[in-house]
């Protein structure tokens, strides 16, 4: 961080996906009205970009706004400056998570991390394991309760053959899961080197 001497915009440009676009924002406010979960956010993309330029590092990285992005791309097709807003929001969220500053209990942060580790194990998403991992994230009792709440949904999906209990034991997987893991480790190593992350 010291390399950026308190210049948060520079830090974002160097270390956040598509961060170099932030300075192009002209604060028109179009994106602020585009988010489907808009009313629930503390900071719209417009505000976030303004805060970055104002150097409000802590406030930006601890905000839960970025985690409310549904990847709807409403903003992207409307932004007069063509900022890749969706990617910047994801990029900021990822960066905050990497630094350990993202809100710990933020449900989408936890889902996102669970999702990625789920899919990298076999190369494919195991939907059933994913659902169970999400339900049981807060421990066994809480998991049972959530599971019970959603039991009708689960049973109906089972009846409609859209969920397979055998996925737990014999999951779909890529034949070259090992190769995929090696390839991802390499990608991680390259990205860390280029963005100047320590590990």
């Amino acid at each position: 961080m010291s390399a950026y001497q308190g210049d948060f915009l520079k830090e974002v440009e160097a270390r956040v996906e598509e961060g170099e676009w932030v300075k192009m924002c002209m604060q028109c406010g179009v994106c602020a009205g585009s988010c489907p979960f808009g009313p629930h956010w503390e900071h719209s993309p417009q505000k976030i970009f303004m805060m970055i330029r104002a150097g409000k590092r802590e406030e930006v990285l601890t905000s839960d706004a970025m985690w409310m992005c549904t990847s709807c791309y409403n903003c992207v097709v409307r932004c007069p400056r063509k900022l890749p807003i969706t990617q910047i929001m994801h990029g900021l969220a990822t960066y905050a998570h990497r630094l350990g500053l993202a809100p710990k209990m933020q449900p989408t942060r936890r889902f996102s991390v669970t999702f990625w580790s789920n899919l990298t194990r076999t190369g494919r998403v195991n939907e059933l394991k994913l659902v169970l991992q999400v339900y049981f994230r807060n421990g066994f009792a809480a998991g049972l309760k959530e599971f019970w709440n959603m039991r009708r949904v689960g049973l109906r999906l089972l009846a409609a053959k859209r969920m397979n209990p055998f996925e737990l034991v014999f999951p779909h997987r890529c034949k070259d899961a090992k190769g995929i893991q090696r390839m991802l480790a390499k990608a991680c190593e390259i990205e860390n080197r280029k963005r100047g992350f320590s590990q």
Partner: protein
Amino acid sequence: MKKEYAFYPGCSSQLRGSASNYLTSVNSMCQTLEVKMTPIPDWNCCGASIGYAGSGELARHVMNARNFALSEKHLPGQDVVATCAACWLGAKETKQKLDASRALMEDTNEALKEAGLRYEAKTEVRHMVEVLIEDIGYEEIRKHVVKPLEGIKFAGYVGCQTNRPFGIAGESFENPMYLDKLVETVGGEALVKYEQKVACCGGALAFSEPDKSQKQIKEIVEAAYDQGADMIVTPCPLCQANVEIYQAEINRKQGTKLDMPVMYYSQLLAVAYGAAPKQAGLDGHVIQPKKLQDIAVKVVPARK
């Protein structure tokens, strides 16, 4: 002549995945249209955008590039066709990025080497809907109809990711018409005034932010009722799952009586082409598409 494509089904469309009935109906539809879809051998997950916090940037591109490389190796010259909106979007994003940056391309290939592969940047990425509209065309799609979907009113719910940021060529982001046109092409009635056509269902956040997403879903379904729809039709497996599955939850919590079937465009085509309910994946729903089932079980009239 048969058209051939490298098929990228994606995780949700696998056998017994949450969108396995999408796959069934696509196969049936493609058989009629003489389209040959060969799954990319050993394809992997596209890295779906929601994995971002774990993946970072390069890993996501590498996941997509692996599929491209496998397709170039095993199915040279064929376009990669995705049926899932999110897979298509992710793959297309990667392709654009790699095409635009030599450095990113080199990094990607350096990582791919670990899996013994190399991406040559020859692959095109397309959505099944593009294949239908651009390669086959409405006229040809119409020709094969043996059971027009007469008397069924469809609210065409396009959603986000087949529409933005890339969309289908020639369509607007605010009011794309292709889904309505497909409905009409197979004899159904398209409710062109349906208001929630391009609204967001909450996407992957249906899991992590259920209440906020269910508010979106409720509006999407209620707007269909407002137009007198019999069912919703969509090109996106995530939209399909969210909008269909959570209606029961919304009813339980809010005392509403939502009971709106949500179908894939491919199921409409399959039924119009004479597929049995099972072949059209009609058995894969938690809300029964009664009117479509009625047509599907009818005996096919002999062709003139």
